[in-house]
C-alpha cells in the first residue's frame, strides 16, 4: 500500500525532523526523526505500511492507496498567474506614524533605545529630527496607498491625542478606503468619547502596563511586560491581549516564554502559510512611513531607510527600489540562520527588528529554544 498525506497536509522537512502542517485545521504535527524518514519516503510514492502511518490516518492527515496516487495539494489562487513577471506588489499593511510628540516618558518607549518584541503595535517617539508631514501630505499618501491596493493601515504616533484634530481629519479621510484601519493609543489617552468616535472607523490598539485598569470590549490590548515578570502575571489570558516583551538585552529569559518556547508557534492559517513560503511572516508586504516621510520596512527598523516620500510619491520608491524592498519582503525564514534548518519555519513568528538588534545581523537569530539539528526544545 502507498500512504500519502492529504491535499491539505504539507510535509515540511527540517535538517533532522519534519512536521506536518494541516492547513484546514491549522494544526502542526511535529515528527521525530524516524517518523520523518517514513513520511518523506511515502511522499515520494514509495510503498509502506506501518503503525505510525495508521495513526496519521486516524488523525485524518493521510490515507493508504493501493496504487501510486498523485495528490494535488491545496493551494490558493493560480500558481501560474502569480509567477508571471511584472505582477503588482502585494502591499498588505502600512504603518503611518502621523506624529512624533508625546508628553509622557514611558520606560519602554522606543525613545530610550530599549528593545521591544512587539513595538510596532505600540506607540513610540523617536529621537529623530525633521518636520512632520502635513495633513495634506498624509491624505495624498492615503490615496497613494489605496492605488497600490494596500489592505490594512495602522495609524500610530507619538501620542495621537496631542494631534487629535489632525488624527480625526486623516482617519475620516481614510475611512472606507481599506479593509481595516488600526489606531494605537496609550491607555491614558483612551476614553469613552474616543471609543465612540472610533466605532465603525478604526480598531483601537491600547498600549498598557496593567490590563485591569481599562474596560473596553472592542479593543485589542498591547501589554508591555518585562520577561522576568511574565510568569507572575495572572491577568493575561483574560482579554484579547498581545504581549510586548520589553528588555534591555533579553539576556536571561525564563523558560517557557512565548518568545522562545514552543508557544511561539502560531496556529497556522492557510493564508499565513502561503504567505510565509514567499515572504517574511511579519515584514513581508509591509511598509512604514515615519512622521518625516521616511519609508522603513517596519516601525522598529529605524536604520533601514528605503527612501523619503516627503516630496515624491510612494510608487517611485517601488519603481526604483524593487531590489531593496524585496530584500526585506522576501526574507523568508529559509534565509534566517538556524530557522532554515527548522521544520517549523513556515509557522513561526519572528520579529526581525528585535533579532537584528540582538545579533547585529539582519538574518541573525537569538530568541529560540529549539535545536533543529537535534530536533529538541531546550
Amino acid at each position: 500500500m502507498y500512504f500519502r498525506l492529504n491535499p491539505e497536509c504539507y510535509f515540511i522537512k527540517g535538517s533532522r525532523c519534519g512536521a506536518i502542517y494541516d492547513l484546514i485545521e491549522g494544526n502542526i504535527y511535529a515528527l521525530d526523526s524516524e517518523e520523518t524518514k517514513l513520511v518523506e519516503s511515502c511522499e515520494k510514492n514509495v510503498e509502506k505500511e506501518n503503525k505510525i502511518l495508521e495513526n496519521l490516518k486516524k488523525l485524518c492527515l493521510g490515507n493508504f492507496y493501493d496504487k501510486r496516487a498523485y495528490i494535488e495539494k491545496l493551494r490558493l489562487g493560480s500558481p501560474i498567474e502569480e509567477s508571471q513577471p511584472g505582477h503588482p506588489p502585494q502591499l498588505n499593511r502600512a504603518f503611518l506614524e502621523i506624529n512624533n510628540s508625546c508628553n509622557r516618558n514611558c520606560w519602554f518607549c522606543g525613545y530610550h533605545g530599549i528593545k521591544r518584541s512587539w513595538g510596532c503595535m505600540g506607540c513610540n517617539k523617536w529621537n529623530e529630527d525633521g518636520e512632520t508631514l502635513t495633513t495634506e501630505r498624509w491624505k495624498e499618501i492615503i490615496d497613494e496607498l489605496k492605488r497600490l491596493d494596500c489592505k490594512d493601515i495602522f495609524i500610530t504616533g507619538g501620542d495621537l491625542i496631542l494631534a487629535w484634530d489632525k488624527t480625526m481629519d486623516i482617519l475620516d479621510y481614510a475611512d472606507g478606503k481599506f479593509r481595516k484601519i488600526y489606531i494605537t493609543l496609550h491607555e491614558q489617552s483612551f476614553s469613552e468619547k474616543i471609543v465612540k468616535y472610533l466605532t465603525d472607523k478604526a480598531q483601537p490598539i491600547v498600549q498598557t502596563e496593567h490590563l485591569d485598569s481599562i474596560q473596553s470590549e472592542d479593543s485589542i490590548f498591547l501589554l508591555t511586560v518585562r520577561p522576568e515578570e511574565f510568569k507572575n502575571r495572572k491577568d493575561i489570558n483574560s482579554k484579547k491581549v498581545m504581549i510586548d516583551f520589553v528588555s534591555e538585552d533579553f539576556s536571561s529569559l525564563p523558560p517557557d516564554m512565548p518568545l522562545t518556547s514552543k508557544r511561539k508557534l502560531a496556529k497556522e492559517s492557510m493564508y499565513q502559510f502561503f504567505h510565509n513560503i514567499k515572504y517574511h511572516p511579519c515584514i513581508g508586504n509591509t511598509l512604514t512611513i515615519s512622521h518625516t516621510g521616511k519609508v522603513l520596512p517596519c516601525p522598529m527598523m529605524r536604520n533601514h531607510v528605503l527612501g523619503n516620500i516627503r516630496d515624491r510619491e510612494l510608487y517611485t520608491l517601488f519603481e526604483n527600489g524593487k531590489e531593496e524592498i524585496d530584500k526585506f519582503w522576501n526574507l523568508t525564514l529559509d534565509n534566517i540562520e538556524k530557522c532554515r534548518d527548522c521544520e517549523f519555519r513556515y509557522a513561526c513568528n519572528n520579529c526581525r527588528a528585535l533579532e537584528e538588534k540582538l545579533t547585529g545581523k539582519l538574518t541573525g537569530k537569538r530568541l529560540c529554544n529549539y535545536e533543529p539539528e537535534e530536533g529538541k526544545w531546550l
Partner: protein
Amino acid sequence: MKKIMKFYSKSGMEYVYDNTTGLSFPSTSLMERVIQEVQGNLSEEETVERLKSDFNEEEILFWYNFVNKWSKFKAFSSTQAQISVEKPDAEDVKEWILREGLNQLTLCATEDCNFRCKYCIYSDNYEYSSGYSHKYMDFETAKKALDHYFSLLEEAKRYNPWREPAVGFYGGEPLLNFKLVKRCVEYIKKEYSNYKILYTITTNASLMNKEKADFLMQHNFGIAVSLDGPEEEHDRNRVYANGKGTFKDIMKKVSYVMEKGYEKISSLAIFDWKSDLFNLQEFFDREDVPRLTIISVVNTDMGCNYYKQFSKEDFQCHFEQMKKAKQHYVEYLIGNNLKKRTSVFDLLFGLSAARSIFQTPFVLDPSPIMPCTSSCIPGRKLYVDVDGRFHTCERINKAFPIGDVEKGLDFERIAEMMGNYFQHLDSCSNCGVRRMCDKCYCAFVTDKGFLSSSQVCKDVEASIANSLSDAFTIGEINPEFLENFSSNYNRTLKKLEFVED
C-alpha cells in the same frame, strides 16, 4: 444538483474533480457514499451505522472526517454558486486595467504578407475574420498609439510600479513595414527613455537581412519566428503566394541570428492532422533551430473551415500518433526531468498537464469582474490594428473594438462588451468544470456578436476529464516534474522576453 466528475489515470487510479475548489482528489466508492451521507447531514455515528455492513469502520471514519474537513471550503457540496452576469462597473474595470493590465501594446504594422499560409487567420478558411489587405500602419497612427499607451502607463504605474511594459510588432508580416518598426523604437527611445521597454516581434523571418537582424538584436527584441518543423512539414502549409515553399529561405535568414548566439529568438509552430509529431520532436531539438516556445494545433475558432480538407482516416491517424507520442513521453518521464531545451512533447504533453492543473485558480473566489471562463479583461494588453483601433488581442476579430488612437481606451465600452459577453454565458452557472474553463472570447465570437456557451461548449466535461487524466498520469510518475514545469517554463519565456497571451 451538481454531478460528481470522475476520471481515471492510466494506472486505473480513480479521482474525483471538485468544481468548488478546483482540486481533484483520489476517490473510492466509500468516499462517494460518505459524501452523500454528509450532504444528508448525518452525524459520525449515524454514518458509521449506515455503512458499516459494507465497509471497514476505520475507513468510514477517515472519509467522514475528510469530507467534513473539506466542507469548510464547500468542497463536495451538491450545489454551486450561480455566476453574476451583471455588466461590470466601468470604474472597476478601469482600476483593474491600471493595476493588472496594459502589459503589452501590439502594433499591427501591416495586414499585408508575402506568405499565403494555408491556415492563416486572413485566409479564406475563417468565416468570421477579414481577408488579407495591402494596408500598412502609418507612423502617425503608431505614434498616437504609443503616446496613448505611455500616457496610460504614466497613470498606471501608481497602481503597479512593477509592471514590465512591452511593445510588440505583429502583422501580416511586420518586416514588410520595417521602417515603422525602426521609427517606433527610435521614437520611444527619444520620448520615453524613462521606461524600460521589452520589444517583441512575431515574424515569418523571410525578409530578415543583416541590417534588420542587427537592429532587432541591438534592441534586445524577443524574436518569435513562425516555423512549423522540417522542410516537408513546414512547406506543406507555409508557402509564398506562388505556392513555393518557404523553409529554405527562413533557415538561411535565421542562421545569421543563431550563429551570433543570440538567445532571445524562438520558434512558434503550428501543426495539424497531417503533421508527423516525431519528426517535429527531432527537428526542434536541433541546435541550429530557434528553441520552441509555443506549439499549437490549427485553430478551430472563428468559423474555421480548415479541417474540411481532411478525411476521417487523417484524423484517426493523427489521433493514433498523438497517443503514441504521449505514451512515449510518459515513459520517458520515469526518472527523467525537464531538459534545458523544451521539446515538442514537453510542450504538448508536459506543459498542458501542468497547465490543466496549475492554471486553475484554486479555492479563492474568481475576480468579481470576470466571474468565469479564461477570457482576459480587455485592456490586459492592447492590440492596435492598421487603422488605429484598439482590440482585446491579436486573435480576436475586429467586431469588438475597445477604443482607438484618437479617443483612447474606452473603459465604458469594455464594460459593455463584457456585460454583453456575460449575457451569453448561459450554461456556465451549472457547468461542471467551471473552475477549469479554458475558453476565451475567441471561442464565442462571430462577425456579429457572441455565441452562447450552450452553443459552444459541447462535451467540455469529457475533454477536461481527459486532460486531467493525462495530467494525473504524469503526476503519479513524476510529481516534481509536473510541479516545476510551470515555473521553469515561465522563466524560459521571461528570458526570451516573450510576452505570452
